């Protein structure tokens, strides 16, 4: 006989069966395509074992898109449920699961990896480096994120999804009210992905500090590199807090400890406290790189130097400090007392100052510039007003007494979607359109890009602007249905229409990608947008070693000066014979390590300690093996460099 839990191991329900079938069909499709075209070896050699930051970046972006699709589907299901009053498209339980996975996936498995992907693609090129500081660790970061995301998503078909919200508040998420494995999936999936994120933070910080091309002082770095630097610092100091919070709750659930219990002296609010000590820096982790992308794009498409560079740097450093001292604004209503709430209310409002400084700098950069309205610039332009709306309402939420009214209403939902979509996602789209030629060697189509932009912009506002209103009218977040006659119905219908509009809009992007791969003109210049930073000085896509000669930097906007400055000879990289380039070897171990973690944590989710232990032992064995590996790098020969450069028309 099988143990009892096998009876409900696999989730049942019509929609789940449909999903099961789709998942199986997709997997079979991928497997057969790979087999038919004999691509398995290629997949392993070129992608799964790669330590090249550009490829790792592309894999991050690909995985993040898959998660975007999943999270988007969740969003559409929620909006369908809320379209009309008294709807029963989803049950209450199902609705809870859907908003939980939507939030968790969008923040941790979509926004972060999308940005980390773009950082991987662009940052090392922008500082004129040949790779990140720790390429092997970079691969481990990716695979732990990837398998963490897979583990989280597995809950959909095996065992059941978590249902306590992306914030997973106890006691609801504790062992008594939530005995199923769903919550365990949340804890272990996030913890695994969090490890990878922490490693990325360390990796990027050391890269920016130590790997810059000669002459590139800190104050000559492109603004995106600055934002990477500050983001890394936030990651390094925020993610350990998440690790602790998740682990403590894991102990409560698996081993019966009482940190967050209602009984035995535990303190449920300690979870909330720890969660937001991580959570607030986290929201800045997902916005700062978007700020950086924006600064790059606005400078490039205005044909001007970024206005107020030192102020931009200063404001980001201020944000790094402030984002660690505002976390209580997420739980003013806990009632910690007037002193606590006042302190954290004021510190929160302070954060709006450096943020405002950035907005003005972007505006002044455009002032009197010759603006080119290409797709990346359109997203950047749309970013500014939406972000201002989100920021203003954020300041409203920071007024502690008023927050007793706004808290957990749709007003809050509107605030953070204006930040996360109008800010982060617009920034990500801007970055994708901007660096697409650098990644794949061709621009995306402008016409389809404009369709994508306008439909998305309009639908986004249609979805979220009414949320401010229904929020003020008293509609609370996470309610799964509502009666008619409250004055919310029409607005909710509008929101649903807007949500589907965003879904349709994304198909324009998809079509654009497919179309461009097939028909778009290849970019042979390497400098698709008449860019200003060093990533545009090499070919598109960049060769494995990025730069045949490491560039030498004399000023901010280094590549711009190489092209146009009066004494540009000085800036040109001296023609000298190539020298062999030292590069790290590929390795399959990061992938295997991620997989071993996956097996182990899957075991722990079901409290099968044997499986969990064996998986962990495999992880440690792989680390041990690495410690004894001394042959970790190779040289690219001069002939090979000459060949590569000649093929791309540079010699």
């Amino acid at each position, binding site marked *: 006989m099988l143990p009892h839990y096998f009876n409900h191991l696999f989730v049942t329900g019509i929609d789940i069966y449909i999903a099961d079938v789709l998942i199986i069909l997709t997997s079979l499709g991928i497997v057969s395509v790979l087999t038919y075209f004999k691509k398995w070896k290629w997949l392993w050699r070129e992608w799964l074992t790669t330590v090249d930051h550009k490829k790792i970046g592309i894999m991050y972006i690909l995985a993040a898109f898959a998660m975007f699709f999943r999270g988007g589907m969740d969003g559409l299901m929620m909006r369908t449920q809320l379209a009309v009053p008294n709807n029963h498209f989803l049950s209450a339980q199902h609705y809870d699961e859907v908003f939980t996975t939507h939030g968790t996936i969008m923040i941790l498995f979509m926004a972060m990896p999308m940005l980390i992907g773009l950082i991987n693609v662009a940052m090392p090129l922008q500082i004129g480096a040949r790779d990140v*500081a*720790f390429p092997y660790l970079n691969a481990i970061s990716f695979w732990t994120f990837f398998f963490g995301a897979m583990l989280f998503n597995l809950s959909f078909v095996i065992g059941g999804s978590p249902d306590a919200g992306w914030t997973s508040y106890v006691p609801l998420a504790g062992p008594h009210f939530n005995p199923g494995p769903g919550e365990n999936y949340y804890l272990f999936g996030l913890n695994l992905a969090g490890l990878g994120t*922490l490693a990325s*933070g*360390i*990796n990027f*910080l*050391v890269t920016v*500090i*130590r790997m810059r091309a000669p002459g590139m002082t800190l104050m000559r770095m492109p603004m995106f590199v600055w934002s990477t630097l500050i983001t890394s610092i936030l990651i*390094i*100091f925020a*993610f*350990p*807090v998440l*690790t*602790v*919070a998740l*682990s*403590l709750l894991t*102990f*409560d659930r698996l*081993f*019966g*400890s*009482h*940190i967050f*219990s209602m*009984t*035995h*002296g*535990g*303190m449920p609010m*300690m979870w909330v406290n*720890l969660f937001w*000590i991580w959570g607030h820096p986290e929201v800045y982790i997902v916005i700062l790189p978007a700020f950086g992308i924006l600064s790059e794009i606005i400078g490039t498409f205005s044909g001007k130097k970024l206005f107020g560079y030192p102020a931009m740097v200063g404001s980001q450093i201020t944000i790094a400090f402030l984002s660690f001292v505002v976390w209580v604004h997420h739980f003013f209503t806990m009632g910690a007392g007037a002193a606590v709430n006042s302190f954290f209310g004021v510190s929160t409002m302070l954060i709006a100052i450096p943020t405002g400084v950035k907005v003005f700098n972007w505006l002044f950069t455009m002032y009197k510039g010759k603006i080119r309205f290409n797709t990346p610039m359109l997203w950047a332009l749309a970013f500014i007003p939406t972000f201002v709306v989100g920021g203003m309402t954020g300041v409203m939420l920071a007024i502690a007494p008023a927050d007793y009214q706004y808290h957990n209403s749709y007003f809050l939902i509107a605030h953070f979607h204006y930040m996360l979509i109008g800010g982060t996602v617009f920034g990500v789209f801007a970055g994708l359109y901007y660096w697409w030629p650098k990644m794949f060697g061709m621009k995306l189509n402008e016409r389809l890009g404009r369709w994508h932009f306008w439909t998305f912009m309009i639908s986004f506002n249609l979805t979220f602007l009414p949320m401010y209103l229904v929020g003020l009218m008293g509609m609370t977040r996470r309610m799964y249905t509502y009666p008619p006659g409250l004055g919310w119905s029409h607005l909710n219908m509008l929101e649903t229409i807007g949500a589907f509009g965003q879904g349709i809009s994304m198909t324009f992007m998809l079509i654009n990608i497919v179309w461009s791969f097939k028909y778009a003109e290849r970019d042979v210049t390497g400098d698709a947008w008449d860019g200003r930073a060093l990533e545009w000085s090499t070919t598109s896509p960049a060769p494995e070693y990025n730069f045949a000669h490491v560039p030498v930097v004399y000023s901010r906007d280094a590549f711009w000066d190489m092209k146009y400055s009066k004494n540009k000879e000085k800036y040109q990289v001296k023609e000298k014979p190539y020298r062999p380039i*030292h590069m790290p070897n590929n390795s399959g171990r990061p992938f295997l390590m991620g997989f071993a973690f996956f097996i182990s944590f899957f075991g722990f989710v079901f409290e099968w300690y044997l499986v969990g232990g064996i998986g962990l032992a495999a992880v*440690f064995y792989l680390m*041990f093996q690495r*410690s*004894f590996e*001394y*042959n970790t*790098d190779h*040289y690219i020969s001069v002939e090979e460099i000459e060949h590569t450069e000649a093929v791309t028309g540079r010699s």
Partner: protein
Amino acid sequence: MAYPIDAHHAPVDPSVPLEYSTEDGSLKILGFWIFLAADIVLFSCLFATYIVLHNNTYGGPTAQQLFDVPGFVAETLLLLTSSFTCGLAIFEMHRNRLQPMIGWWIVTILLGMGFVAMEISEFAKYVGEGANITRSAFLSAFFILVGTHGTHVTIGIFWMIALLIQFIRYGITAVTARKAFVASLYWHFLDAVWIFIFTVVYLSGKVS
């Protein structure tokens, strides 16, 4: 052949300690410092949790009743001494003397093992008295904080054993020196964390 590595890892700058002499080495040391900074924050959260919960004994044993002075003082001395001997190993490494380096390294590992053994028996004793992790929030926070430190030490011991084999095989090179230095940073760091456990958990427990 001392060690099977390409020329890239050969020391390039004889004016600095061996562990910093390759770019790879100095990058990794910086990376490890940053990891330790992150670990500081990790422990700070566990300390915060302990401080918030330490009075919530729920009718179970209190810190005052539970902790036994000679026991935790002995643990402290073991770890302190091991931090000292670990420093001596690095000192000998800088003088390029392999034998004494290995000797101190082994002493460090043994002292670390002694510490872990004492901690396990301390935990076993508490559990035997019914003071286990499920008894009260205070005990949950105690076991998780002190246990996390103990796990760190245990991992450190396995790591140091792996390195010991490499010292014996390859001698003192730029690569093994960097590995030894990084492990020694980790070890001193764990001693520093223990000092705070000693102060905040054990000594403060005896005061109140």
